[in-house]
């Protein structure tokens, strides 16, 4: 027995020692530090039937309000205005006509070319008009070719005035070019007018270089966008479009709401009793409703209500039921869904 006891004790001490060493500190489970996040289950109709909004629109309903800042006031200021410096003179409006001038500048530049050979004396009054375009040439690159052209005609007129002269003499409507430069002086040149004036000018001019320039100018002017900066649609709202429309056609009645509507109708319905062939007494009736639930117009029998007496009676009963229940109670925010509804009156459902 001694042997057994000692060996048992040794065995136990060894086993416990092993257990204390190996099982002493079980590796603690590593829990991933993941934050839980809520999940909403949303019917897919909310997305598939929603009206397209602006994809670029910010998520927020309204843009973040800009912090208001108090405008700094200038001490001892005597003039009204938004300036930071107190000035006597009134603020000048931005020179709006300038862009128009530059657009109108090209026409006067080419036109002088034909005129000099035709009538020299009349050319003199024109120069005053020319200086105006000159600054314009500095602004826009287009006039540059014109300047190159200009020196050419001058020697041509002196040396070879004949070939051109033929062309100049042919049209007797020389005064018309004179009349044209005047509008630019008044600075009210209009695009259509200029076009009209240029087109007749072309046939008169036979000089190749000048016609090429004209064509180029035509192309350029055709490319120019002459739409007024204030043009565009009639959109008045300054607010950016929201992500969704205000009126969604995607509204859909829930089953409970459909049932509620149906039960309202069913309460008022006296189904035709005692008539044979209940199958043929199914009436489907279509009605338009106002947002307050009242009938809009008369209900329309879509199917059923045939020729036989019982069928007509069934159709009448259905129509009566709908009209009797007239103000329907339905969720107002889903008006689009029940604005136009169709009810099926089936006597078989009653039994």
């Amino acid at each position: 027995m001694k042997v057994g006891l000692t060996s048992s004790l040794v065995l136990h001490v060894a086993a416990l020692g092993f257990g204390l060493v190996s099982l002493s500190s079980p590796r603690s489970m590593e829990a991933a530090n993941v934050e839980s996040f809520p999940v909403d289950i949303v019917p897919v109709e909310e997305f598939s039937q929603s009206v397209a909004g602006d994809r670029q629109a910010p998520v927020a309903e309204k843009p973040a309000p800009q912090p208001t800042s108090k405008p700094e006031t200038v001490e001892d200021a005597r003039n009204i205005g938004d300036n930071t410096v107190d000035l006597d003179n009134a603020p000048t409006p931005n020179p709006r006509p300038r862009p128009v001038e530059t657009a109108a500048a090209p026409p006067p530049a080419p036109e002088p070319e034909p005129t000099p050979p035709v009538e020299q004396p009349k050319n003199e009054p024109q120069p005053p008009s020319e200086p105006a375009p000159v600054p314009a040439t500095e602004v826009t690159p287009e006039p540059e070719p014109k300047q190159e052209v200009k020196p050419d005609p001058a020697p041509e007129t002196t040396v070879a005035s004949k070939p051109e002269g033929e062309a100049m003499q042919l049209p007797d409507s020389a005064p018309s070019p004179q009349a044209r430069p005047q509008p630019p002086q008044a600075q009210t040149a209009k695009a259509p007018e200029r076009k009209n004036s240029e087109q007749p000018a072309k046939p008169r001019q036979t000089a190749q270089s000048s016609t090429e320039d004209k064509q180029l100018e035509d192309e350029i002017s055709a490319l120019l966008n002459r739409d007024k900066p204030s043009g565009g649609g009639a959109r008045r709202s300054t607010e950016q479009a929201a992500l969704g429309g205000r009126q969604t056609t995607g509204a859909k009645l829930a089953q409970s709401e459909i049932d509620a509507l149906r039960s309202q109708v069913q309460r008022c319905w006296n189904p035709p009793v005692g008539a044979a062939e209940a199958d043929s007494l199914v009436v489907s009736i279509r009605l338009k409703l106002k947002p307050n639930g009242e009938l809009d117009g008369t209900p329309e029998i879509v199917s059923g209500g045939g020729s036989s007496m019982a069928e007509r009676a069934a159709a009448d009963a259905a129509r009566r039921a709908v009209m009797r229940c007239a103000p329907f109670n339905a969720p107002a925010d889903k008006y689009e869904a029940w604005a136009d509804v169709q009810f099926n009156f089936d006597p078989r459902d009653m039994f």
Partner: protein
Amino acid sequence: MDELTLAAPGSDVSIWALFWQAGWVVKLVMIGLLAASVWTWAIIVDKIISYNRMRAALNRFEQVFWSGQSLEELYRTLSERKTSGMGAIFVAAMREWKKSFEKGVKSPLSLQTRIDKAMDLALTREMERLESRLGFLASVGSSAPFIGLFGTVVGIMTSFQAIAGSKSTNLAVVAPGIAEALLATALGLLAAIPAVIAYNKLSSDAGKIGLRMEGFADEFSAILSRQIDEKVAQKAA
């Protein structure tokens, strides 16, 4: 209320710490189970050794007995030292034989009965020695799981009381108490499983050895009865 204090979350959950955190009931149960386990293993080792010895002794005795050696001589050598197993049975039977013949045989029939009784007694004594302490294994095997379960239930009870006291159901608060309680069940199973297995094995071994000794006793009884009949015939002749 010392046992109502819970281990702080994330505290030491080693076996040693679990043992020291446990309440005194659970501690007592654990210590008892550990002691039972120690004793069980002591018995197992002891029994295995003694059974092996017994088997070897039986083999040796059978070899000697069936070698044709004279029984008188065998008895003389065996009676002088402590015998066990078949030797003990043989010595008991021979002693009864001798006693009867030294005083002259009156009735050989009663002699046969006396010898059988003596051998039965010796056999019973040997079997008792063989099967001693096997009962402990059986009771440990059947009751240790329950004792461990008791410790677990008590431990979980106290740990739930402590949870109620701490007003927190955080698993980190609950876990150490439950782990400590479950240690009691683990110890119970640790003691019971070897005990059950060893009991089944050892009792079947003891049964086999007993059968072997019973067979020897029957054989020896047959030999002696033949001797008695011969002696009676000699006397009659």
